[in-house]
């Protein structure tokens, strides 16, 4: 205890350089724990993207691809599926509800999703949260659209604004469905899911804007049909891209999945969202692990700065060691003095780093949640932080033993004589 108090006094005496060392440990710990917190938050948000849906059904490809285009709106469907197949599944006795999705068009980089009004009731995220309207209502007219929160904010749209859908998925499209403009009927509240970046219209509207198109190419016919004429037509789609399924009983999910996967009418694939999401996260996880590895190395660099600061001070502190020896300190006391200095620097640094991190998170968390939908709530100090402090202290102990051993040897050789 005496030795630790001496170490504290000695560090306080060198508070400027010791402060810099503490700061370098603090920054590295802050980075490491911060990366870990954000990673957890991102992972939680990721896994909370879709819930309440038991199966996602699309054309046969890979489970990851199906989840990517149907939920995350990334990439393209390999194929569409027929309305008949969709009806077959929808009419099963054990199916409670289905929500069809028709993809393939976009608006200034945001995906357009053709669906039914049921989508807004059935789609759930983050456990059991349902979609809410920040403004306006669900689409009722054929050319109504409901936009996500990011679309509204980034493009500055509000209810009743006109919106023109482009054919295809490019950011800049050369074929616009400008003969049939839409009107925004509603804006959804922020969810932190890909819904925020989607434009939702009815399935019939997708059919309507493609009237007179053949094989994805516009023919002169298309412009001859006015929006009002389109409203009179029967616009039941022949094809959709995918659909969400809710089962009456969870128990039936696996059976239904098997039936859909072996459906003879056309190659279909049904995936369980949770399973596909965790598969997908394993892919994303490589980047995540790289990030953790990099920040771990930063922590090691911080600890090495502790080592350097003690090693460089050793020579100028030979006199201090000789004085301590003269009043009765043993070489062991000298050893523990330096080890406890290293541990003190590391512990003070870790605590400062955690303090800075939580202060920063406290300020930034509401903004990050609002802006990116990554919920950093529930990321308060936890066991992980305790392990972090203990781990850094333990590493400092081991690293500090090296200069301490040198000082131990030095003080044995120097005795009471002090070299100037």
């Amino acid at each position: 205890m005496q030795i630790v108090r001496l170490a504290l006094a000695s560090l306080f005496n060198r508070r400027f350089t010791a402060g810099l060392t503490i700061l370098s440990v603090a920054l590295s710990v802050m980075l490491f724990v911060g990366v870990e917190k954000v990673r957890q938050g991102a992972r939680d948000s990721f896994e909370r993207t879709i819930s309440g849906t038991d199966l996602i059904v699309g054309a046969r490809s890979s489970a990851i691809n199906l989840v990517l285009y149907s939920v995350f709106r990334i990439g393209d469907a390999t194929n569409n599926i027929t309305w008949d197949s969709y009806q077959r599944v929808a009419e099963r006795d054990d199916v409670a509800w289905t929500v069809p999705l028709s993809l393939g068009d976009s608006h200034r980089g945001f995906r357009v999703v053709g669906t039914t009004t049921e989508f807004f009731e059935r789609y759930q995220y983050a456990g059991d949260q349902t979609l809410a309207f920040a403004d306006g209502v669900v689409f009722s007219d054929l050319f109504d659209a409901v936009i996500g929160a990011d679309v509204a904010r980034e493009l500055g749209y509000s209810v009743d604004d006109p919106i023109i859908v482009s054919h295809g998925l490019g950011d800049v499209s050369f074929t616009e469905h400008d003969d049939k403009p839409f009107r925004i009927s509603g804006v959804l509240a922020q969810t932190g899911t890909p819904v925020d970046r989607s434009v939702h219209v009815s399935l019939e509207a997708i059919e309507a804007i493609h009237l007179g198109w053949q094989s994805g190419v516009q023919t002169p016919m298309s412009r001859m049909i006015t929006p009002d004429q389109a409203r009179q037509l029967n616009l039941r789609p022949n094809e959709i891209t995918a659909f969400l399924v809710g089962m009456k009983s969870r128990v039936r999910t696996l059976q239904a999945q098997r039936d859909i996967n072996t459906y003879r009418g056309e190659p279909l694939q049904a995936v369980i969202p949770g399973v596909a999401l965790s598969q997908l996260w394993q892919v994303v996880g490589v980047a995540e692990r790289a990030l953790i590895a990099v920040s771990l190395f930063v922590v090691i660099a911080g600890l090495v700065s502790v080592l350097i600061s003690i090693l460089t001070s050793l020579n100028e502190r030979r006199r201090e060691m000789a004085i301590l020896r003269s009043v009765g300190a043993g070489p062991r006391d000298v050893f523990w003095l330096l080890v406890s200095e290293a541990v003190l620097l590391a512990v003070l640094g870790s605590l400062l780093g955690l303090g800075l991190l939580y202060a920063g998170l406290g300020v930034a968390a509401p903004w990050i949640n609002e802006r990116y939908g990554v919920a950093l709530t529930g990321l308060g100090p936890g066991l992980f932080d305790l392990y972090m402090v203990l781990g850094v202290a333990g590493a400092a102990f081991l690293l500090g033993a090296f200069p301490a051993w040198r000082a131990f040897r030095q003080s044995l050789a120097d005795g009471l004589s002090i070299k100037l």
Partner: protein
Amino acid sequence: MRGPSGSGKSTLLGLIAGVLTPDEGEVRVLGETLSGMSGARRDAIRAAHIGVIFQLFNLLPYLSLIENVALPCRFSSMRRERALAASGSIEDEARRLLARLGLDGSDILKKPVRELSVGQQQRVAAARALIGGPELIIADEPTSALDDNMRDRFIALLAEEAEARGSTLLFVSHDAALAKRFTRQIDLAEINRVQLPELM
């Protein structure tokens, strides 16, 4: 103890203080045979029974003046108890010794030690060597950085305090004029029988 530099003074002092061990022969201090003892035991004996004053830079810059004086009490319970018996608290004993050596007044006691003059620093070191009444005080040329006037006063104060507590004062100097102040003197060059290997 007199002797030109290189005559082995530092080595002898290291042997007496128990921080060095002889290659052969025996070292006995205050009736204890140091050679053959464990290092920790020698450290304990030094802490309890020996006070050391260096030539220069005696003080730890990160401790206050009082804490510097009290330092040996952190390493020896015997000296702590003797200091407590003398003044009731270690700080009071440190203050009393400093006052005896001419360092009193709260303004000087509050100064960081690096702001003290050399003479003041040496007196703080003397107080540290004296606290808890160790039986042996080793002073390794403690006055070589002081002017004559200061030197005489320092030696007088040190000798007086050592005598008051019955401590032996082992004083190292190359200044022959100081010899008359001590009861016994040794010229190290005369007694050093270590055969140095021929260098040429």
